[in-house]
């Protein structure tokens, strides 16, 4: 079956612009995570959804970052007034409902470059 997909695969933008990054999780997966991976680092947690609600958004670095998952499936990570320091690979992962499996399935990521 289809895995986690993320679009676009690459995004180049200018400082100060607004960007949206999309994640399509595996069908039936209720949990969805966003991570940011900077060069030479491991994934850094941003936000976790269980269904439609953000169960934990403590990893969002500031109020320029926001994520939604209105129907409990597709999620969009939104970054306002982008800064050069936002340049990174943004990863999305999904997991089955609680009790079925603890494995996260990762997407290929969106590489964001802020000029």
């Amino acid at each position, binding site marked *: 079956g289809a895995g986690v997909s993320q679009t676009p695969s690459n995004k180049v933008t200018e400082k100060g612009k607004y960007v949206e990054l999309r994640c399509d999780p595996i069908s039936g997966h209720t949990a969805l*995570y966003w991570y940011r991976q900077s060069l*030479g*680092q*491991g994934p850094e*947690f941003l936000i976790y959804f269980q269904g439609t609600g953000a169960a*934990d958004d403590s990893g969002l670095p500031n109020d320029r970052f926001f994520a939604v998952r209105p129907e409990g499936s597709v999620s969009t990570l939104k970054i306002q007034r982008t800064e050069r320091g936002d340049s990174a690979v943004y990863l999305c992962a999904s997991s089955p409902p609680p009790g079925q499996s*603890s494995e*996260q399935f*990762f997407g290929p990521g969106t590489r964001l470059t802020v000029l």
Partner: protein
Amino acid sequence: AQSVTQLDSQVPVFEEAPVELRCNYSSSVSVYLFWYVQYPNQGLQLLLKYLSGSTLVKGINGFEAEFNKSQTSFHLRKPSVHISDTAEYFCAVTTYNFNKFYFGSGTKLNVKP
């Protein structure tokens, strides 16, 4: 909060030699531990995990890891590596509700012929 330390950023090793990739964690509560692998130009995939039970966990591709609570470690081992094991390996930790995962900075395993 939890944290993960991977002490070695790069590990070079010859083919068919054994390897150990080190992972130490910090947490004030019980944890679940994971190893993920990222092959070149591919996404992260699960190698193995420790949730409970036997502290020696076996994963895919001949890898295994041992949970050591007293030393707060979860080192990854393979008795004989192949060229195809060349990849970056990440250790991760979470707690009972799986709300948040903390990843280490990764170890690049370079297997040489």
